[in-house]
């Protein structure tokens, strides 16, 4: 009887099909470069008074951002797109109080826009397959986090202290984006 079970197991192993995975090599390459450019641009912006960072704010950073390893490829793409969108949204707000270079901010926006253009057709395809209304929790958590950032900026009347805090948050976001691109494998 045991021989029979063994034979079945062997058969199963031999004829199991391997799952097909999408090839995101081009996308991954573009993403990684884009993130590096954005980080360089962000670092060009001067970090104004350090005392602004001493105040601890709880923006309810999503748990998903603290542990990147739980993402599948498709989820990673949705998260990346959402983050690019939200960072773009923040950078379109009034930063005149900071004295930051408009050119640098515009370059950042251009880069973010370019990346979103690359991701959009893939994102659309994934969204059509998935049912968003089942509540993709990671996306909701992200939206809550970025909403908190926006409300904080508004409450501080877009002063340079608030923007300094934003800059730190965005640098952290880009680090996370970089690790996410690792999930777009061949």
């Amino acid at each position: 009887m045991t021989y029979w079970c063994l034979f079945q197991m062997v058969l199963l192993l031999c004829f199991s099909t391997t799952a097909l995975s999408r090839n995101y090599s081009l996308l991954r390459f573009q993403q990684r470069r884009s993130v590096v450019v954005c980080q360089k641009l962000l670092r060009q912006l001067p970090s104004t008074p350090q005392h602004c960072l001493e105040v601890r704010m709880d923006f309810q950073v999503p748990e998903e951002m603290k542990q990147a390893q739980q993402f599948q490829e498709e989820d990673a793409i949705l998260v990346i797109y959402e983050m690019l969108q939200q960072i773009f949204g923040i950078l379109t707000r009034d930063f005149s109080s900071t004295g930051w270079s408009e050119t640098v901010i515009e370059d950042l926006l251009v880069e973010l826009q370019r990346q979103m253009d690359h991701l959009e057709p893939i994102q659309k395809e994934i969204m059509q397959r998935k049912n968003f209304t089942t509540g993709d929790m990671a996306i909701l958590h992200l939206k809550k986090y970025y909403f908190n950032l926006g409300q904080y900026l508004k409450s501080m009347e877009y002063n340079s202290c608030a923007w300094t805090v934003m800059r730190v948050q965005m640098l952290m976001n880009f680090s996370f984006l970089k690790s996410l691109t690792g999930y777009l494998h061949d």
Partner: protein
Amino acid sequence: MLALLGATTLMLVAGRWVLPAASGEANLKPENVEIHIIDDNFFLKWNSSSESVRNVTFSADYQILGTDNWKKLPGCQNTASTKCNFSSVELKNVFEKIELRIRAEEGNNTSIWYEVEPFVPFLEAQIGPPDVHLEAEDKAIILSISPPGTEDSIMWATDRLNFRYSVVIWKNSSSLEERTETVYPEDKIYKLSPEITYCLKVKAELPLQSRVGYYSPVYCINTTERRNVPSPENIQINADNQVCVLKWDYPYENTTFRAQWLRAFFKKIPGKHSDKWKQILNCENVTTTRCVFPRDAFPNGIYYVRVQASNGNGTSFWSEEKKFYIEMKTVIFPPVISLKSITDDSLHVSVGASEESENMSVNQLYPLIYEVIFWENTSNAERKVLEKRTEFTFLDLKPLTVYCVKARALIENDRRNKSSSFSDTVCEKTKPGDTSKTWLKAGICTALFSLPVVIYVVRLFLRGVNYVFFPSSKPPSSVDEYFSDQPLKNLLLSTSEEQTERCFIIENASIITEIEETNEIDEVHKKYNSQTSQDSGNYSNEDENSGSKISEEFLQQDSV
């Protein structure tokens, strides 16, 4: 026990029915409670379970799911109607699940709470109508659309820039000629006729979440009369490494032109950005229908360009805005293709970046589409496909056939039609067809089923070997039948056993017989002696002597 349980349940159920009747319908429950959210407006609607006009009021509470802190829902306290507006609720954010409950009250009596299914406001919310401002030109209408909700909207705070607007426009005179266009918040609708009344309505969409909003009211506007100075048309840009050449069409002479550019992402941001358009130097007050400017003037990126004409009679409206990708060296490397056969009727294609493009600096990357040429190796019939994705599959192919693929990369939406050279041709054979597959499956099944048979045959063989070389001590069954008697069986079977009492010495057989006879004679004699015991005195010696004499004679005979 069971009967007791059943009886108790019956009583409880009956009690529930009975109690409201007993209290005279005081505890009316709200029914069919529904939540409606449009932008930042929250409504609660329900039905009352009684139709009679009494002093029934309703109150509602809310809490964040997971906390245990019911708070009063503002705008829904002691309300007599069957709906309330709780938009003034101060939610920290709209991305957390909310619980609502509502009950009816009459005097001091209250019904039980009706609890609404917990929901996430952001996911429940419907997109309201956008706010639209129109400005008319002679052949175009300028749209200024504000996103749904107010500027301080909490609901759409994270998605303000993600809205796309779908415009339906028609001539007021004939509503049959409808046109639908998707526009940015600040955009124009072109190709209209002068001095016509156009009507339009706009709805906002979140395309990436597949959510569509309500249409705005219908707005109508008249296009102006045709302007004396027409706008330039058919704008094109050609770029090489050193310069960019901007060209357009214009029907008249003696006109000066100026060109402006705008970074593309500004289109996504609501609000007028007319101040963001910048003049292209070298393209100001030009009198020809082309202007040349250095590549260095523009950092790499995506731009919109527009041109305006002016002459003695006035200035034209701005031309159509054209989108361009401006890059330093528009070198596109050929892609790298890989083909994989998945099933018998499909081939999976993977398009990858070549090694050289991996080494390129990042500014030279832009959205590419791929022109893929696909043909069967034996025929020359080529199929041409334009693909934006880097992974796709060709279907409806023939099994066990070799197909070949080559591709080149193109810049998307580029007027220049700049493309790379073709990649290397890659060929792959599709998998065997269904018939071969079924033969394969049949083969596996027979192998599976023949295995126990094989094992059985091997066992039989081993048994035969055992039988021949290591025979067992059991007799064949026929022998068993024949001999049913137990001792005789033992006789035949136990050949190794020796019956010592029956073992004779053959040599002295005759003496033995003789001795036996003499013994018999002796016995006879003895009998005789016993019988003739009266004469025993006289004959005894003679008998004895005769017996011994005979034996001596015989012995002598023998020895001779």
